[in-house]
């Protein structure tokens, strides 16, 4: 022990010895040692982490268990091609690039895979060839007559795909089947131009059916009323076997070859001139519509319930028993917009899951759709329809729906028709046509059609088959959805139920906890 001089003097004087903290240096040393060990341990761990980080980057020490699901064919096309296979027809698919390039292309690879799947499924019916459009030779070195496929001024690029029926020589060029800069017919895009889905199975079926068909139906879209035509609807009509074109009824009557006339979301009214007897003049737009229907034409109309009243067109449709419902409140007229909180897929209640109406055609469509899909058809911001005479509903809202506009409830009671049809018999009684009206512009937009959970596409195909008499619809073809995180078939009422269940757990724990703590306190 260290001697302190003061202590020695105190001892001599007989005074108590002052104790000093003689252990201070030892404790200080221990602390320094302890701190050094701590710093060293932390430093070692840090250095180990840095080295591991570098090694992990160099040797890719991570794994990614995500993988894309491989494409498959649903088999929906077996029925469509059965007749052609029985007749031993063959279809050739020409890719205008070599196989290695096509299979490695970022968007072309899916098209390549689909072609391979079709060839595997129908080996006697489908054949694939790869063409070099520069040398105009196929993969075996044989000369390829490229000029035979540009008779109608088709443009053929390295990213094009040509479909041809060998027996008839009928061909179809898909000019820009896939590129990395733009996307074409094999894909569906949303309104912002982003890819929604890859629709290879359906588009291949469309093209193969197209070249096998002996004739194609014609659909005309009206113009000059700011009509909004969704490209996915045009593509759908093509899959149903229709060639599309535009027509201005101000300039000409509906052509004789028109199998279907489409009035798609007009924003301005149709012209009408009334003669002395109160009948629309034949050269006015409404007059031309009348004439078309009287000769047994088919009409597809989609209306925007938020657009101001199109008097001439709506009066024309009301003449066939279908009109847009309105309610007068305090001297103001409100369109009845259907809202269904329980059966909506959005929180505002305006994107609703519809129900199939009763009625012969509605039941046929519903039963047909049952074979291929879940049967649910969604529709957004639909107006309620009023029906009279022989007009019948095809789709309605559920019984829990109401009608609202600008926050005002205009109607209650549910079961509002949102899609309806009427049959029109020609003047000589020999031809019948059909008018179909849907009171929403969103039934055939890309995100309503491109979905594996809802059946809007199959509904339209069924409509075309049962109402307009077309055949060989590509039902049930699955799309490869790019944004497959969308929840489908979930209504707000189900979401509310799940939320209640999830929140019931902490509620139960709170009650149990309160009981336990109170009992302990009172013990």
């Amino acid at each position: 022990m260290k001697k302190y001089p003061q202590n020695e003097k105190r001892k001599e004087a007989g005074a108590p010895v002052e104790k000093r903290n003689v252990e201070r240096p030892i404790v200080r040393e221990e602390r320094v040692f302890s701190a050094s060990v701590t710093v060293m341990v932390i430093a070692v761990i840090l250095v180990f982490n840095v080295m591991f980080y570098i090694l992990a980057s160099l040797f890719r020490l991570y794994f990614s268990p995500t993988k894309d699901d491989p494409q498959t064919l649903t088999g929906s096309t077996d029925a469509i091609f059965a007749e052609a296979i029985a007749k031993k027809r063959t279809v050739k698919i020409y890719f205008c690039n070599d196989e290695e390039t096509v299979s490695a292309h970022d968007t072309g690879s899916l098209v390549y895979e689909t072609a391979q799947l079709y060839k595997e499924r129908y080996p006697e019916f489908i054949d694939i060839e790869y063409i070099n459009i520069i040398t105009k030779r196929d993969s075996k070195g044989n000369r390829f007559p490229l000029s035979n496929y540009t008779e109608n001024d088709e443009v053929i690029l390295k990213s094009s795909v040509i479909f041809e029926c060998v027996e008839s020589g009928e061909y179809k060029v898909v000019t820009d089947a896939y590129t990395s800069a733009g996307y074409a017919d094999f894909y569906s895009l949303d309104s912002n131009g982003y890819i929604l889905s890859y629709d290879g199975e359906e588009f291949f079926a469309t093209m193969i059916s197209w070249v096998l068909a002996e004739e194609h139906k014609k659909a005309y879209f009206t113009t000059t009323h700011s009509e909004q035509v969704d490209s996915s609807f045009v593509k759908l009509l093509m899959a149903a076997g229709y060639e599309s074109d535009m027509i201005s009824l101000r300039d000409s009557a509906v052509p004789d070859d028109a199998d279907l006339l489409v009035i798609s979301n007009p924003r301005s009214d149709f012209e009408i001139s009334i003669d002395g007897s109160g009948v629309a003049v034949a050269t006015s737009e409404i007059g031309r519509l009348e004439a078309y229907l009287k000769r047994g034409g088919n009409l597809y109309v989609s209306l925007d319930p938020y657009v101001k009243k199109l008097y001439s067109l709506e009066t024309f449709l009301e003449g066939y028993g279908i009109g847009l419902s309105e309610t007068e409140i305090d001297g103001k007229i409100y369109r009845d917009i259907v809202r269904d909180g329980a059966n909506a897929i959005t929180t505002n209640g305006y994107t609703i899951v519809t129900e199939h109406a009763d009625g012969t055609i509605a039941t046929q469509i519903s039963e047909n759709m049952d074979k291929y899909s879940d049967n649910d058809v969604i529709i957004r911001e639909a107006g309620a329809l009023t029906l009279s005479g022989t007009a019948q509903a095809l789709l309605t809202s559920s019984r829990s729906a109401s009608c609202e506009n600008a926050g005002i409830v205009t109607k209650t009671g549910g079961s509002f028709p949102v899609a309806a049809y009427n049959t029109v018999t020609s003047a000589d009684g020999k031809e019948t046509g059909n008018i179909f009206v849907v009171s929403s512009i969103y039934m055939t937009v890309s995100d309503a059609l491109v979905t594996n959970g809802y059946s809007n596409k199959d509904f339209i195909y069924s409509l075309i088959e049962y109402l307009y008499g077309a055949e060989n619809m590509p039902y049930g073809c699955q799309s490869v959805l790019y944004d497959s995180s969308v929840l489908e078939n979930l209504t707000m009422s189900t979401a509310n139920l799940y939320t209640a269940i999830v929140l019931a757990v902490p509620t139960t724990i709170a009650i149990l906890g309160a009981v336990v703590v109170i009992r302990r306190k009172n013990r």
Partner: protein
Amino acid sequence: MLAVFKKEMRSYFTSVIGYVFLVLYLALSGAVLCYTTLYSMSSDVTSYFTIMLLLSGIVLPLLTMKSFSEERKVKTEQLLLTAPVSIIGIVVGKFLAAYSIYAGCMVLNTLYCLVLLNYSSLKVAVLFGCLIASLLVGLVFIAIGLFVSALTENQLTAAIGTIAIILGFLAIGLIGSLFPSDYAIRYVFNFLSIFTRFQYFTNGVIDIASIVYYISVAIIFGYLTVRIYDRRRYN
């Protein structure tokens, strides 16, 4: 260690704090899950787990704030330190108790996500990755909470201190993103950032280096807690 673990678990389920944490955490996580998936019509769970990362940083300190600070406040610290159990055993026992509750809540929330399989193609690999990341981040947050709790006898101070350190760690990634990508210092910040490493897992990538990092940070704070108590035992 087992005795300490059992004691801590008993104290969580016989006192208010355990139930408050469970109710608050499960209610918040349930509400966030429903809002980000069911009401957004999306089966993408990455936004849910990212929000829960931030919420965990605020709610987890409730669980850890009383671990050591209460012992000091009610003067039971001496009993603990003189008990025939090592400091490491004490720290690990308390850590495991808090972590068991957190992990149980996290696994339950992940099971809720499976309901989305009925309505969409849920990316199970991403869900699994997010769960692993959340459990690893829980290790770090709880270790930080125990460390701060050991420093003070005031529970509120312990909670606030823990939240401050956790938010500091989360902010490291934000600070790093302010630098241009070719600056070396950005790599340093990304290396230290809990949030940046968390994002690898939300993309469905199981990054071994990040797993090592999270465990290392938890070990560092655990070691510091042991050092504090070791020093206190012999003082």
